[in-house]
Structure formats: C-alpha cells, structure tokens
C-alpha cells in the first residue's frame, strides 16, 4: 500500500495529467458532481457519487462509427477513427467499477466491439472507497464492497492522506510513474476507515435488500407477474433511469447526412422509449408496461441467465434519485418479491 500526503494531491494529479488526460468528480455549475477533466486548480469533490455514471468514458452518449461518401451509384466507406489517447479516471466508486465488468461482458464478448475495447484499453481506473454511503446505496445487494473497490488502483482518502493499492499491471505502472510522491504505508488507517464505513453500510435502509427472489428464476414466471401493470402505471417513458444507469448499454445506430457525406453514429437508446423497438413491420412492445418490464427483466432475469447469475445492476442508486416519478429497481424487486410471500 502506498501513501500520498493530501498536501501533495495536486502535485500527484499534475504528474498524471502531464502525460494523459485525467478525469475526476468535480462539482459543476449546477452543483452536481460530474466527471470532468482535471486542470490546474480544479477541485476534486468526493462528497457523494456523480450524477452520471462513469460508463461515458467507455460508452459515450454518442460516437461516430463510420463515414460514407456517396457519389452516383458508388459508395466510399471511411473509418475516420483516430488513435485514442490514454486517460486516467480517478475517484470511481465501487459500484461504477463493477459496472465496467458488466459492460465488458456485453461489449467484449464475441464479436468484440472495437470502439469500446479501444477506450477500455486506453483507460486506467483509480477507484475510491466510499466513506459516507447514501441512503439510496445498495451495492452490497450485488456483492460489492464499497470499502474495497475494484479497478486498476484502489484508493482511500483519509483525513490527511490518500492510500493507494495497485490491483493490476496497468495500475502498478501508473503508481510507479508517480513514485516520487508516494511512500510505503501501513494499512491500518485504511482498515479503520473500512470499519467505520461498514457500520454505516449496515445501517443503510436498503442494507438487507436481497436478490434471492431472482436467483435461478424461470423467466416466464417473473415475466407473467401481474404486478408489472401497477409498477409501470406512472412511468413517463423517459430515458432518465437508462441514461444515469452505469450498466444500461442499449444503443441505436443512425445515419446523419451532413450534406457532404453520411456519418453513421451510435447513441444511447432506452428500452423505455416508445420507438425503441419500432420497425417497418410493426412494434412488438406496444405499451409502456412491456417496455418497463423489459428494462427490469433484463437487469434481474435475462442478464443473469446469460451471464452465470450475475445481475445487471450494481446498486449505485442513481435511478432512485433521478426518476421523475420515483419508480425504480428497488421498488420493482420488493414488489415482485412481496407477491410471492
């Protein structure tokens, strides 16, 4: 374990930012935490989690896939990608780090999504242990330890220092580069902090939320539950939950005619949108009930079926905070479970 005096934090950031882009949670104009590029004088904010998840780094809101030029009957295909630059994300919480593993299962499974892969390879993640979990947090439900986050480097911020623990070669190399600022340290302050945080985690209102009901579940049984109607009743069909979710990865591919050529891009899409599955031949999910059900079936049932029981949720609690009508995965889980009792 390495230790960095808090007084040296900016120097540490400057050292990293010297060679590559460095991102971290910084308060924006709206008073929200947002991953932003660090520049001299920017202030790291660690009060709570960011509003948008860290998935943007690897799966941005929109990205250009390929360009076309059309002339007469001929088409030219242009792969306009350029080499990505290396970057470091500091301050990713345990839940968000886990979300990368979930996204990996989608994007890195065969056939590999090279756009995602390239970003993934260029990014180094310095995670940060939580000290003041929020009432909406329930990462423990999915077996995540908020005090011991995954990532290339794990970090803990105490009153006077930051402690680092490399967890991958990439992480190791990053720390080596900043070796001058770091010193070997005893991990007892970290252990003390973990202990303290655990007492909070135990007290969280959702501390006892369990996925048991959904483990090895027959998909038809959950699918056919009568509770979906009531749960989806007030859903506005917006994409807030989807877009703040660290694991939602549905996308749409569209063409944009610039007048000088065609740009094919992909962008976030939401299964909550009424046009998500609309196609020339018809619409298989006709009502908001079906679309709402799809989102939660995917996270709680389909994803585990296809991924050795791993759920498509990391308990970050963003949707609990941001849904305009306060309907969320916790309510869905509790309601469906309650039905059985």
């Amino acid at each position: 374990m390495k230790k960095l005096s808090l007084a040296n934090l900016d120097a540490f950031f400057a050292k990293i930012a010297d060679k590559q882009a460095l991102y971290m949670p910084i308060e924006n104009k709206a008073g929200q935490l947002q991953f932003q590029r660090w520049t001299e004088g920017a202030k790291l904010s660690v009060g709570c989690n960011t509003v948008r998840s860290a998935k943007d780094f690897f799966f941005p809101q929109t990205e250009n896939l390929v360009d076309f030029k059309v002339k007469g009957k001929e088409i030219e295909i242009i792969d306009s990608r350029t080499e990505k630059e290396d970057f470091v994300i500091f301050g990713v919480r345990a839940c968000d780090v886990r979300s990368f593993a979930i996204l990996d299962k989608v994007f890195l499974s065969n056939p590999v999504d090279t756009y995602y892969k390239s970003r993934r390879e260029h990014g180094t993640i310095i995670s940060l242990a939580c000290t003041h979990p929020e009432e909406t947090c329930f990462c423990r439900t999915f077996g995540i330890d908020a005090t011991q986050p995954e990532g290339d480097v794990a970090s803990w911020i105490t009153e006077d220092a930051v402690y680092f623990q490399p967890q991958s070669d990439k992480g190791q190399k990053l720390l080596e580069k900043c070796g001058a600022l770091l010193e070997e340290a005893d991990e007892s302050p970290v252990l003390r902090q973990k202990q303290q945080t655990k007492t909070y985690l135990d007290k969280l209102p959702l501390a006892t939320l369990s996925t048991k009901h959904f483990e090895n579940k027959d998909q038809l049984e959950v699918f056919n539950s009568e509770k979906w109607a009531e749960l989806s009743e007030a859903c506005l069909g917006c994409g807030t939950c989807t877009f703040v979710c660290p694991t939602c990865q549905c996308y749409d591919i569209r063409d944009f005619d610039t007048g000088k050529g065609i740009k094919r891009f992909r962008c976030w899409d939401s299964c909550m949108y009424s046009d998500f599955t609309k196609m020339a031949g018809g619409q298989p999910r006709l009502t908001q009930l079906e679309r709402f059900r799809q989102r939660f079936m995917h996270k709680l049932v389909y994803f585990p079926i296809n991924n050795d029981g791993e759920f498509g949720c990391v308990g970050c609690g963003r949707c609990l905070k941001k849904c305009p009508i306060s309907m969320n995965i916790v309510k869905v889980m509790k309601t469906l479970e309650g039905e059985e009792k």
Partner: protein
Amino acid sequence: MNTEALIPKIGVVTDIRIDTPDVKTFRIVGLDGKKVFEHIPGQCAMLSMPGVGEALFSITSSPTNKDFLEFSIKKCGCVTDWLHQMEVGQQITIRGPYGNGFPVETNLKGKDLLFIAGGIGLAPLRSVINYVRDNRKNYGSVQIIYGSRSKDDLVDYREIIDEWMNDEGIEVNLTIDREQEGWDGHVGFVPNYVKELNPDIRKTVLMCGPPIMIKFTLAGLKELGFQDTQVYTTMELRMKCGIGKCGRCNIGSKYVCKDGPVFRFDQLGELPNEY
C-alpha cells in the same frame, strides 16, 4: 468473422429480379466481384444505403452458390423502398453474416424435411432448400408446402416450377389464398392445406411466414401429432446492431440476431411471448 463488426463492406448489385409486385431479389457481390462472405442457410445480413438506413435481411441464396449472395426483399418501409428503386450497378453496404442459421449439418442431417412457407417467408427457406438439393444424399425426403395470397405473390415461382418440381425426391405443394384465373392448383390457406396433406409426422419441419400463419400451422401440426422439438422457424425482429449488443431484438433472454433467428418451438416455448 468481420473484425470490425459495425463497419460494413461494399456490395455491388449485379442483378435484380422482380419476383412479385412487391418482392424483388437482389444479387450482390463484393467490389472484387466475389462473394462478400460465406454463410450458413438461415443466416442474415445487414444491408444499408448510407443516409437511408440499415436493415437486416435473410440470405436467400444457398451457401453452395459460390459466386454471389441473393436477397429476396419485400417492400415495406424506408430502406426497402429505397432498395426497390435501385438499378443494377448500384453499390450498397453489407455486413454479416449474422445469427445461428438452420442446423443443416447437425440436427437436420439425414432427416426427412418438410418446408412450410407463406409469402415472403420462403426467402430464408430457399437457402436451405437449395442447400439440401445440392447435398441431396445427406437428407431424406423433401416436401415443400408454399402458399401466398395469389399466383403473382409466389416468390421464386420460376425456380420452383423449372427446378424444384423437376427434382427427384422433392414434392412441391403450392397453394394460393383465393381462386384466380389461370390457376388450376390448390386454393386455400397454408394451415388448412398442411392438414389436408397430412404429412408424415416423422418429418422435421422448417417453417417461415407471417405470424398468423405460423400460429395456425403450428396448431395444425400439433393436431397431426408433431412435437415442438420437430419444428424450426426463423424470426426477423427489430434488429439493429446484428451482434447481440444494442439490446432491442431480444425475446426474453435470447437475442434474435445472435441466438436466433432460427429457433425450435420448444425453445420458444420457454421464452416470453413478446414477438
């Protein structure tokens, strides 16, 4: 498989055949004049005109055809409208092949096969039929029951008459929905015709057509004594990426573009009825 799954290749349209008033068959080769890729019968490919859109279509030609790919496409939307007004020599983009295809080298081998198709549903089956015809010794008897609204709406009519009907060991049963002048064949809906023909229940069924036809034919087959495990179908649902990632083509836990489009009915039975 293509290393850049989302970046297409260029295909050149070398032949356009008008099958029915709203179905055309397009022959496509690569820029080098060769086949763009190899495939398994039942697989699909994503065709697109930049700026118009991208859509997934079954490959209609058989893998045994070494020269080109063919797609029979029915006009029913923005992309297909555009494809229908193309002329020979037009370039389009193509990527694929996608999906599992029919188990022609495993489960179907040595079996007596019954093909049931309605309308444009013949398109994916034609690939299998021609594959079977070209590897005749690997399969048992072949029966094809094909129906459409009218004589004019029978896709690949010439090929059926000139080639399939002349093949030994292939029984072709055609039907149209309503009486029509110049038609002395069977008249009636496919599900009823299947029941009338009362096929041997040891056959393996490959079925494709409009949902309503599938529904009633399946019920009819079951009445005759067929099991879900004997019947395969293929679906084309709201696919966008073609590689199981964009998240819209799933039926329950299965992605049509990746785990399908060919499903056996016993598999579908375990999935939500959301298709």
